[in-house]
């Protein structure tokens, strides 16, 4: 599903061209360099290098089995890398002290809480495990259970919860001690769109409090909620950057859709000679899709060139490819094969 901006006017120009935000500065909260990990003869992580800054939401996106969870396990200290190094909050995860661990929240993909305990007992236990003072515990427990909409079922045994509820419980347990850094492995999986939006709002709130989050997801459109995104495929980080940067990276620049009156002309041929044009194609007779290095600079020249060739430009709009398209394209570029989202097992969320 494409996202078009603009209306059919003579010619109407509607593009959103903001200057790139400066990259965050300061010591990284997570600093991973060249991490490699394999199990038996199977390599699951190849040369992973990434950093996460204070107050940043970093999204690790990729199909199932791409190495996202292994990356989190390495950063939490569950697993040791075969090679490479990682520092989290300035320390090697293999030697985290209690103080550092208290600053980290961890939500794994599977349920690691006790299925026999109630929802509230499990979160209370997690709070105790992280040393939350007893006088704060009651309020904190209630707060995270309300956030995850589990408060009404707080007395239900965990084993009787649905899969989605169990994930919310895991998230509640990871948040109850108000961590400075949250590792969340697919926190929004199997959740309804409204709750997902609510959770992302909470994550944004955490980010606003200068807390850092490393979140994995298979919902590629959730990438837009992240400050930076890393795309993983077959154990490798094949692309990384702000969401807009990834779009540009996938298509080689800005994509501009120009609608012209129907004329038997090869508009693609016409615009390809304009300076800054990377590529052009005609999905329909009436429109031409042009990829340019910089839309702001190229659009006036494109209009001029088309009108000089006798075409009537009716509208110009910047094409916003979905992240589905972006990631498929990036993975295709990386692997050199044509893939579909089904093949990649990437999920597109509903209702977004």
């Amino acid at each position: 599903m494409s996202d078009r901006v603009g209306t059919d006017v003579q010619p109407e120009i509607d593009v959103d061209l903001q200057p790139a935000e400066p990259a965050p500065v300061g010591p990284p909260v997570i600093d991973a360099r060249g991490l490699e990990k394999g199990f038996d003869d199977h390599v699951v992580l190849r040369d992973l290098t990434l950093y996460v800054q204070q107050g940043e939401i970093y999204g690790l996106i990729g199909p199932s089995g791409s190495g996202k969870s292994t990356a989190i396990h390495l950063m939490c200290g569950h697993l040791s890398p075969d090679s490479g190094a990682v520092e989290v909050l300035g320390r090697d995860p293999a030697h985290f002290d209690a103080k550092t661990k208290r600053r980290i929240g961890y939500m794994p993909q599977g349920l690691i809480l006790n299925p026999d305990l109630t929802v509230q007992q499990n979160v209370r236990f997690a709070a105790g495990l992280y040393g939350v003072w007893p006088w704060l515990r009651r309020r904190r427990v209630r707060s995270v259970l309300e956030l995850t909409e589990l408060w009404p079922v707080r007395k239900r045994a965990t084993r009787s919860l649905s899969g989605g509820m169990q994930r919310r419980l895991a998230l509640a347990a990871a948040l109850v001690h108000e961590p400075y850094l949250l590792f969340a492995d697919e926190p929004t999986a199997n959740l309804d769109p409204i709750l997902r939006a609510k959770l992302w709002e909470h994550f944004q709130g955490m980010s606003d409090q200068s807390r850092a989050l490393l979140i994995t997801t298979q919902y590629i459109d959730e990438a837009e909620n992240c400050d930076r995104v890393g795309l993983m495929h077959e154990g490798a980080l094949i692309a990384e950057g702000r969401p807009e940067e990834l779009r540009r990276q996938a298509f080689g620049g800005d994509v501009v859709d120009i609608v012209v009156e129907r004329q038997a002309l090869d508009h693609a041929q016409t615009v390809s000679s304009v300076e800054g044009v990377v590529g052009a194609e005609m999905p329909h007779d009436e429109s031409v899709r042009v990829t340019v290095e910089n839309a702001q600079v190229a659009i006036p020249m494109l209009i001029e060139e088309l009108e000089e060739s006798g075409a009537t430009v009716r509208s110009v709009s910047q094409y916003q490819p979905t992240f589905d398209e972006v990631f498929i394209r990036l993975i295709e570029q990386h692997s050199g094969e044509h893939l579909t989202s089904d093949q990649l097992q990437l999920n597109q969320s509903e209702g977004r």
Partner: protein
Amino acid sequence: MRPFIQTLAVMVKELTELLRRPLLVLTLVLGPLLVMILFGIGSDATFAPPRTLVVLPPGEDKPALLQRYERQFKSSMRIEGYTDNEAAARERLRLNTIDAVMIVPPTPEETIGQGGQVRIQVLYNEIDPLQRGLVPQFMNAMATEVNREIFLQNTRAQQGGIGNATREIDSALRTMDTAIEAAEAGDREGALQQLDQARATNERLDAYLDSLGPEAGTLDPLRDRTREQLQEGRDRLDQGESILATPDPRPASERFGLVQARDNLQQLRDSLTQVAAVRPEVLLSPIVVEARYVAALQPDLITYFAPAMLALLIQHTAVSLGALGMVRERLANTFELYAVAPITNLQLLIGKYLAYILFTAAVMGALLVVLVGPFGVPIIGDPWRVALTLSLLTLTSIGMGFLISLLVSSERTAVQYAMLSLLGIVFFSGFALPIESLRQPALTVSYILPATYGSQLLQDIMLRGLPGRDLYIWVLGTLSVVLFVACWLLLRLRTRAN
């Protein structure tokens, strides 16, 4: 403060978890307890006499021997019936519908009357090694009882004959006195007459003494000597002239040997009196063992087994719960949470230990109340020593459970190991069989089990009022420390990054 909060959180979580699985707790704790109470109530720890079929010679009625000594027979065997068909009796024995076949020979009373020994054959085919020796034991006990009765009756009858013998000796003594007087008065004919009379009396005496049977055998030398002296006196009286012609300062009665013969008769009488004075029971059993029970308490079956049962239940409960406690978390990946949480393995282990100690203490308390209250099991010794033993036993057993939990890879295997430990206690801790009856390598297993030390200590303290062996206390203490350290090291290994 934070480490305390974290350890407490683990403890509370463990206890909550236990309380949320009441069925498991009931099965683990109350199940074995009820089984043992039923066993205690339903068993008196005695063995029933063997069911016996008596085979009589064809055509013979039940022998008088069996009728006369029926009480002795019935106390040692349960007579199922009488038959003259030995083959049928053997077949019933083979089919295990009876425990023994007793084959009585023909006319047993006559055999005994003729001084013969009656040989009763007993057949049995018990395959239980513990009970195999019981049939011969019961039968031997019966034979001993019957033999004793027969002997006592015979002896009493024989002692009645001693009175007649004594009267004959008294008569002989009087005759000898008259003979001595006659000899002293120079009435040799008179002395001879009296002496012949005394010899006739002595022959009757011999007949009485012979009727006393072998028991009077001790008198034989005296009887022989008396007989010889009486004969010698007569010979000397016959040679009266020549003897009197021989210079001898002694009185004539002595020179004729009449005084010596009389003294001998007197000795025989004294000896007979002594024999008659001995009770037949003494003659039968000159040495009697008198065993006296001097323990402070004479426990019944429930009381005796109560301390061992307590030790067994504590070990079983703690091992089972401990074995399930860790393995469940390992399988549920809760260890992943422990690995990232700011809790050390030591805190985690202490938290879990505390929870299980509290839980087991509650179970222990309840068991003690039941045992001391309704079942009246006493605590004669120091209650603090009981508490120390129970605490160490709990610690060691929890350690064993956790060790199993950290070694196995599934909940089912953990349960199997816990059951194995229960079987180990039943067979090797002295619960079913005394440890003294075990040999290597079973003994080694016994001394690996905490319940072995626990039950010995608890029995000594509770039932004997002793402090219990310090060595056992030290062994339990050392085991608990070793197991704690082993669990801690294994836990570190389990939560270490791969």
